[in-house]
């Protein structure tokens, strides 16, 4: 259950939602996307109450453990879904290039590695060219190379003007992306600011140390 969550994500920034397992990261993301109903409060997009149409038009989402149909090829999956957004083959090919899957586009998704599936998921997010990209644990279960590739794509998307909101409990990634952060603990936001601020607050030398002090301080 979420309690008194108050967050503001600015246009064009990378925003990291940090929290231990079960802290409420996925619940918050699903609430933002309207997949879960909220009992109280409101979600605003560009100053107005966020409507389902806003989400369908402006938000791209990559859930945790996303797995598209294994018996389709990567390019087929994107082409069919992309046809819903009037995308042409050239658009799909450029998306595949962006996420580094051009070589593997004609392979069945069943033959993809976890990292390739995540990159395909990122391409799926981008089909409608959304303003905001929401990623739930985008590097979960990836090897270091896969993590690096996904983080590079996220940074690249941000350079292209996308607002990125992601959840993670891998703190080094947040530092690497120079994201503004919020720490969520037991369904409530414990801290919201930049990495430097949380380091100063806890007089810590690393984000991990500061994060642990923040989380343990709440208990």
């Amino acid at each position, binding site marked *: 259950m979420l309690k008194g969550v108050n967050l503001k994500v600015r246009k064009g920034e990378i925003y990291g939602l940090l929290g231990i397992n079960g802290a409420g990261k996925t619940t918050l993301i*699903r609430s933002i*996307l309207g*997949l*879960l*109903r909220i009992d109280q409060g409101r979600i605003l997009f560009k100053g107005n109450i966020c409507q*389902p149409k806003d*989400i*369908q038009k402006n*938000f*791209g*989402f*990559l*859930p*945790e*453990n*996303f*797995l*598209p*149909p294994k*018996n*389709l090829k990567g390019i*087929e*999956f994107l082409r*069919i*879904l*992309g*046809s*819903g*957004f*009037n995308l042409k083959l050239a658009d799909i090919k450029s998306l595949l290039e962006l996420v580094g899957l051009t070589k593997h586009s004609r392979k069945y998704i069943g033959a993809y590695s976890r990292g390739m599936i995540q990159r395909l*998921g990122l391409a*799926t997010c981008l*089909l*409608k060219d959304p303003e905001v990209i929401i990623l739930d644990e985008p590097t979960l279960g990836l090897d270091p190379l896969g993590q690096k590739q996904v983080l590079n794509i996220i940074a690249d998307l941000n350079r292209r003007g996308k607002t990125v909101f992601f959840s993670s409990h891998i703190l080094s990634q947040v530092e690497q992306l120079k994201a503004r952060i919020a720490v969520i603990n037991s369904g409530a936001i414990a801290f919201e600011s930049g990495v430097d601020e949380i380091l100063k607050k806890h007089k810590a030398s690393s984000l991990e140390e500061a994060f642990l002090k923040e989380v343990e301080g709440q208990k």
Partner: protein
Amino acid sequence: MRKFLAISFLNFKEAVRDKFFLGVVFFFIFYLLFCIFLGKLSVGHADKVMRDAGLAGIELTAIILVIFSFTFSFFREKENRILEVYLTDFSPGICVSGKIFGYVLLCGLYLLLSAIAFGGLLYLNQAFNLASLVALYPLFLKIVIIIFLASLFSTLFSSATTALLSLLFVYVGAELIPSALAIVKAYGAPVQKVFIKFIYLFFPNMDKLDIKSLAVYGKLPDYRFFLGITIYALVYCLFLWLINLLIFQKKEY
């Protein structure tokens, strides 16, 4: 419309490539060979037996195909979190309707393939009549209703097993209820008659969508029958679709 077609085609392609679909197709091929064998055993009635067994086989395999394939696909989408991606990109109405239409296309493809194989078998055994193939149209309507029911139960229940069992129960119930109605009409108390009649009206009237017994003898009802069952199936499916959509929108994913 583009979004609806995208979801439909995605589901159709996924289902056609599914091992379950291929398994049912292969099973049907073996079943057709069995029909030839049955025909050889029924001296003097080989043509009728082949038509009857063939139509029954098409019905059975098509029903198994849509019930299992749809239900497993729906719950797989939930488990693999892809439904969340669709719901972020498309409205719930498009997600539900697109999936249903994808399976209607699958059912159409299966019936087309089986009609070609079945028609070929009858032709090679001098047992072909057009009525046997026309009988596939009411069967198509029956399976379309089952697809809508599969979607409703998949949306309603959070477990694939419960959805499957409920669907099988309703299907078997709908097939058996005309017999129950005939029994209570002859021997039942007034309360039983009203109760069974109510269930009969509420459940899909599968008996109305079955002309196998006529088609086997080369007979067909007139066009009003076909018009009537088409309207019935459309209205029934619309009713199921509205309830389905209402539940789908209320549920959290």
